[in-house]
């Protein structure tokens, strides 16, 4: 019983940050039709920026609780500075091209950002320990968990609800949905599609950076964190169905639980449990769990 609870809580913690990151990926895909390999790089940028901002806040003798604000600001900074720049200066030129070619464009972006991150922050690991102790610890049965992990779950829920509400209940959200449905028709109705693209891309990157910033206290921020995140969040959106919020949530839960099951019960399988789950889902639902099947063009 205790084992099952541990697995569940570990899985949920993993799923919660993964959901935030994957939501960004699925949003960018839904609107721009780009499967963004560089998404993991923006996650890494968020984590590095959080490390710098929290250290900066500490040097200004801010109260420890402000480190949470610093992390949020880090994510905002990454999204506001880097996202519009990459979208306007780079991605814009490739819209409408074959989707696999677009994957390669973002692969190039990933290679570039990887080195840029190293140039800015060096290769030594950074640690963001301050916020981790803010929420104390929580006892569940005989096990003690860090409160921060649960706050991450709350953050994931908030983000998920906010994005859903923003898309489905606001005017701007409806415009985005119209663009997702048909960019051409939306454009002929007077929607500034290229602005929607830029904003959606920025929002997606903000989510990646937010996920990175808030997981920074739990990991050592070092080169290479982007690579792992990309593949795992790919698995999440593929399982859930590309471009679906519910899909990202269910996908994140499935991946989180599969991973924590593997870690606790069969450590050998840890590295590839996620891919096996993904392969099984795709075998039965080739379009993912929450994706409508598309008709083929004659």
């Amino acid at each position, binding site marked *: 019983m205790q084992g099952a609870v541990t697995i569940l809580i570990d899985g949920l913690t993993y799923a919660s940050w993964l959901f935030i990151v994957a939501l960004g990926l699925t949003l960018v895909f839904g609107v721009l039709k780009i499967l963004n390999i560089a998404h993991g790089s923006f996650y890494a940028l968020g984590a590095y920026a959080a490390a710098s901002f929290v250290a900066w806040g500490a040097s200004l003798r801010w109260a420890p609780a402000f480190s949470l604000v610093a992390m949020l600001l880090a994510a905002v900074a990454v999204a506001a500075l880097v996202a519009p720049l990459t979208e306007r200066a780079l991605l814009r030129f490739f819209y409408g091209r074959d989707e696999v070619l677009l994957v390669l464009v973002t692969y190039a972006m990933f290679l570039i950002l990887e080195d840029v991150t190293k140039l800015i922050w060096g290769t030594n690991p950074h640690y963001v320990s301050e916020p981790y102790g803010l929420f104390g610890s929580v006892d569940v049965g005989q096990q003690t968990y860090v409160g921060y992990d649960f706050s991450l779950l709350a953050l994931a829920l908030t983000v998920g609800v906010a994005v859903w509400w923003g898309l489905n209940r606001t005017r701007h959200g409806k415009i985005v949905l119209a663009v997702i449905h048909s960019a051409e028709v939306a454009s002929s109705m007077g929607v500034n599609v290229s602005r929607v693209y830029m904003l959606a891309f920025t929002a997606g990157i903000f989510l990646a950076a937010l996920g990175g910033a808030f997981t920074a206290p739990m990991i050592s921020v070092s080169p290479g964190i982007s690579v792992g995140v990309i593949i795992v969040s790919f698995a999440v959106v593929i399982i859930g169905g590309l471009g679906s919020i519910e899909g990202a949530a269910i996908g994140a839960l499935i991946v989180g639980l599969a991973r924590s099951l593997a870690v606790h019960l069969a450590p050998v399988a840890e590295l590839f449990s996620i891919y096996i789950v993904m392969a099984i889902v795709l075998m039965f639902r080739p379009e993912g769990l929450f994706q409508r099947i598309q008709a*083929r063009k004659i």
Partner: protein
Amino acid sequence: MTTPEAASGGRFPLKGATPADRQSRIRGVRLGALVLNGLGAFALLAAMGFFAPKWLTYLITMSAANALVSLGIVCLMRGGVVPFGQGMVFAIGGYAAALLYNKLGFTDAVGLVLAGGVAATLVALPFAPLLARYRGIFFAMLTLALSMVTYGLGMKLEVLGGSDGFNVGRATLFGWRPPDAHVGYVLYLLTVAVATAMAMLARVYFDSTRGLVTLATRDNELRVEYLGGSVRQAMTINFLIAASCGGVGGALVVLSLGHIEPQFSYWTTSGEFVFVAILAGWQSVAAVFVASTVLEVVRSFSSRYFPDTWQLALGLFLLFVIRFLPRGLGSLWIRKGGK
């Protein structure tokens, strides 16, 4: 593609011959030219390798071996799908050769290369019909998942040497053990010979009926099915061919490099193979080898002169290619041939 008359250089008056006659003449001309080109390229490279410095022969050996994996990707790309996990067959070919050498004491280079290709094909066999159902991003991601499972197995399994992998000694050639001074050149010759042979086979396959069905699939899958072609069968066979190419490439790399590790199956390795395939485009076989050499050169030079930013250089180069050469290097010398 050029017209048959143009391909024959106008030497054969094709008008007036019976259709079957025409067909066989065209085939004969094309095949003859192909064999001549292949043998010519091999002779040129063999002679050049004899005088070239060691670093250059090594660079070309690696490029040619890696190019075989990308040739497999091109084979699939002609059907409109791009695998993002070709590192899997590359690693399997490499591991098969390395295990045969280390565990069974089988050291013949040609045998090891063949074994690499066969092993990769056998592993791909159960997955091929399944993967043939998928397109676009899903095909890319599923192959990627397979390669990452292979990576995971490589990291965890003791028999495969874990995360460090293992070393492979010097191979023999038909019972002859090449001396230290010439081993590089011998492996170079072997790699170039295998690569030329496979390039010629690839051209024959691309121009065959199934090769053309594959090309039609790229344009419109449903239409091919209405015309009675089996898209799924073509995809399955293409996947197997790509696997065998990848396996042979992996075995060749292991023989020259003398080392194998799970990194062979990592997704960034697969990404580089796709990079070469995109750089080459799907029209020309020779372009794959040129593109692979370009990548090796860019990689060696940038890791030597700016070691901290070579990925950045590679990324910029890739963006440049996609932006300004969307149909790849091959489109520079093959003008027509589909949109």
